[in-house]
């Protein structure tokens, strides 16, 4: 043994188990990350299919493809799948699991078994949510399950909210695991301010997961209990208060928006210095702004309810806080751009996706401020403007950050490099299609087209036609990207330890990393982006 010992990569090391068992009973954080990745991809593609069906229905005014009731179920399940199964777990569960211990110089997360349990809960919740497609009538409430309709509808809402409850539990356990990991497992010499910025983002995210998720958990449980026992917690005819439901729901679900976007921002902070070959500008500002977003994010939920009955002063305060939460986001964007300035930029696919993120997030963020302004919101509330806005943030932001992370860590995880030229082209197809798909929504929303209808007035036809056309380009881009990555997995050239020239610890170990990551735990003596 000694120096000649052959360490197996985590992809090969089955720990004495066979076949699929070696995967579904693993406690290796990288394998669990991949388990999440594969399952998440399947659910994401299902969500895409539902979205495409909606776009097809909306291609022309009148009924094209599906019944109105089917359309209601389509947007509900599209929302439930994309939010609860893809965007919320997305980056933390996949790339947090894979990269966090590597970035910290740790052998695994603090609670490896709990980590596996989170994945099982995720799968259980996912199966419960998807079962509503097959059994009973698919829910038709929208992913927000607003009472009292969610209490009265005959569709299978109970199963869907219980699924969301279980998924929330999975999310809590992941967050808990990451917080303890970051507190206790950093390599010797890695002080808080020598941590890579992705860990900071995950840290802030984990606190939101921990402190906000239980509130929606109990709220959804109340919906389920109300439906099963016929009691009146939120149904006004039984003495309940439906506005209270909205408050409770958004107390979680607005912070949840930051669960979705913060890890994405962390990914971008990781990439910009690597591909600009430059020390990150404003390390502490970026780190603290993650915490600031997490903190202020708790106090802005009311901006979802400007039109549903709230006192004037309350609306003004919520609007003000909404503007405040945009400040730390802007701090990040300025710091990224400042880092790029004067750097020797290497326009590889991960950076392209990162730049795509900045561009799209900028549109998403600024349209968010339009929604946050009281007077404007009264006009655009529940219109396609809102739909366009959050797709720019969720897909253009989190989605593109997810793809950036995928292209960034792909060679680390599989040890092989995809075809960079084709990956770049796939990015441009996706990026172009994205804007053709979603920008018309902002326009048609301003014109007054309401969301969540299967039909619309003739004057909205052209933007909807363009949007549907864009959805086909997006799907082509996605397929292109997936084919390039699968080809890379099968026939890619060996990537080597550090194909991008990163300085963080993940690039110092083998690709793919060995089980338990490092032969000897590294000792850290400086910050993560000290490009000379």
């Amino acid at each position, binding site marked *: *043994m*000694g120096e000649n*010992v052959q*360490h197996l990569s985590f992809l090969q090391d089955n720990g004495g188990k066979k076949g699929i068992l070696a995967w579904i009973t693993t406690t290796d954080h990288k394998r669990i990350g991949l388990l999440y990745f594969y399952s998440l991809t399947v659910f994401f593609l299902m969500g895409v299919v539902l979205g495409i069906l909606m776009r097809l229905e909306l291609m022309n005014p009148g009924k094209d493809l599906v019944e109105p009731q089917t359309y209601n179920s389509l947007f509900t399940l599209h929302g439930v799948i994309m939010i609860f199964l893809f965007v919320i777990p997305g980056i933390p569960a996949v790339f947090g699991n894979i990269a966090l211990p590597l970035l910290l110089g740790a*052998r*695994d997360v*603090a*609670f490896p078994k*709990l980590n596996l349990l989170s994945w099982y809960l995720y799968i259980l919740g996912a199966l419960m949510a998807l079962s509503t497609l097959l059994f009973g009538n698919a829910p038709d409430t929208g992913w927000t399950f607003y009472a009292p309709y969610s209490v009265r509808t005959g569709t299978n809402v109970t199963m869907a909210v219980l699924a969301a409850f279980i998924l929330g539990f999975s999310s*809590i356990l992941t967050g*808990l*695991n990451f*917080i*303890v990991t970051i*507190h*206790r*497992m950093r390599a010797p010499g890695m002080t808080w301010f020598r941590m890579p910025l992705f860990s900071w983002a995950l840290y802030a995210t984990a606190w939101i997961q*921990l*402190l*906000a*998720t*239980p*509130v929606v*958990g*109990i*709220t959804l449980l*109340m919906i389920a*209990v109300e439906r099963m*026992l*016929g*009691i*009146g*917690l939120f149904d006004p005819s*039984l*003495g*309940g*208060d439906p506005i*209270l439901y909205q408050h*409770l729901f958004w107390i979680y679900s607005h912070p949840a928006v930051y669960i979705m976007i913060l890890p994405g921002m962390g990914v971008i902070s990781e990439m910009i210095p690597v591909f600009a070959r430059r020390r990150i500008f404003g390390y502490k500002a970026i780190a603290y702004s993650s915490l600031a977003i997490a903190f202020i994010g708790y106090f802005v939920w009311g901006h979802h309810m400007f039109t549903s009955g709230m006192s004037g002063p309350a609306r003004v305060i919520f609007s003000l806080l909404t503007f405040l939460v945009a400040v730390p986001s802007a701090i990040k964007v300025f710091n990224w751009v400042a880092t790029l300035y004067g750097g020797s930029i290497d326009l590889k696919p991960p950076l392209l996706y990162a730049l795509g993120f900045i561009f799209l997030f900028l549109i998403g963020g600024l349209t968010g401020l339009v929604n946050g302004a009281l007077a404007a919101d009264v006009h655009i509330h529940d219109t396609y403007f809102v739909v366009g806005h959050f797709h720019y943030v969720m897909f253009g932001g989190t989605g593109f950050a997810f793809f950036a992370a995928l292209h960034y860590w792909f060679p680390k995880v599989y040890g092989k490099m995809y075809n960079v030229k084709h990956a770049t082209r796939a990015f441009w197809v996706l990026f172009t299609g994205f804007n053709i798909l979603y920008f018309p929504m902002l326009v048609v929303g301003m014109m007054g087209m309401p969301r969540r209808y299967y039909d619309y007035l003739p004057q909205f036809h052209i933007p909807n036609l363009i949007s549907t056309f864009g959805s086909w380009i997006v799907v082509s881009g996605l397929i292109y990207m997936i084919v390039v990555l699968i080809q890379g997995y099968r026939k890619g050239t060996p990537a080597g330890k550090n194909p991008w020239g990163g300085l963080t610890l993940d690039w110092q170990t083998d690709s793919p990393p*060995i*089980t*338990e*990551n*490092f*032969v*000897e735990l590294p000792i850290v003596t400086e910050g993560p982006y000290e490009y000379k």
Partner: protein
Amino acid sequence: MNTNNSPSAHVHRDDEAQKMGMWFFLFTELLLFGGLFLVYSIYRFKNPDAFAHGAKELNVVLGAINTIVLLTSSLTAALSITAIQKGQKKLALGLVLFTIFCALIFLVNKYFEWGHKFEIGIYPGSDLLRAIPRGEALFFVLYYFMTGLHAIHVIVGAIILGFMARYIQTGLINSDYYVLLENGALYWHLVDLIWIFLFPLLYLIH
């Protein structure tokens, strides 16, 4: 050759992390009940008289007995940790078993309390609950929801303590390694703590 360098030989033990994880989990439990407390306070604010009237229906004596039972059980849970620290395995085991016994007493009491309510027609969805004023019905709905969710936590806590008892027996928990017992007891204290709030909110405020 140093076997510590081989990843597979690496054993990681960090009691501090285990306890930290438990505390964070307890935060989430508090917030889970926090949602219910919020709903309770808002509906109480909206229907003060109905809530006061509803609270008079509850059996303060049974509630008080259960409070004493839970407080005692928290004490014995804490004592069991001290016992295991001092290496007194049998005493620790006895104290944990006594804690579980208290949990059972609590549940039996709860059973009689709920049973009586069911007999007189106060249960979710009953005709009586549909007939009485809405505010009062909300009180009973919340009563069942909150004490019911709490009872589930009592059961889970008792099961956790059951595992602790087993681990003390097998020696997995010993005077050198007792963080599991500490965490189990922490969970039990949470169950106790929630009840400390539920009791006055539901039974005492008239």
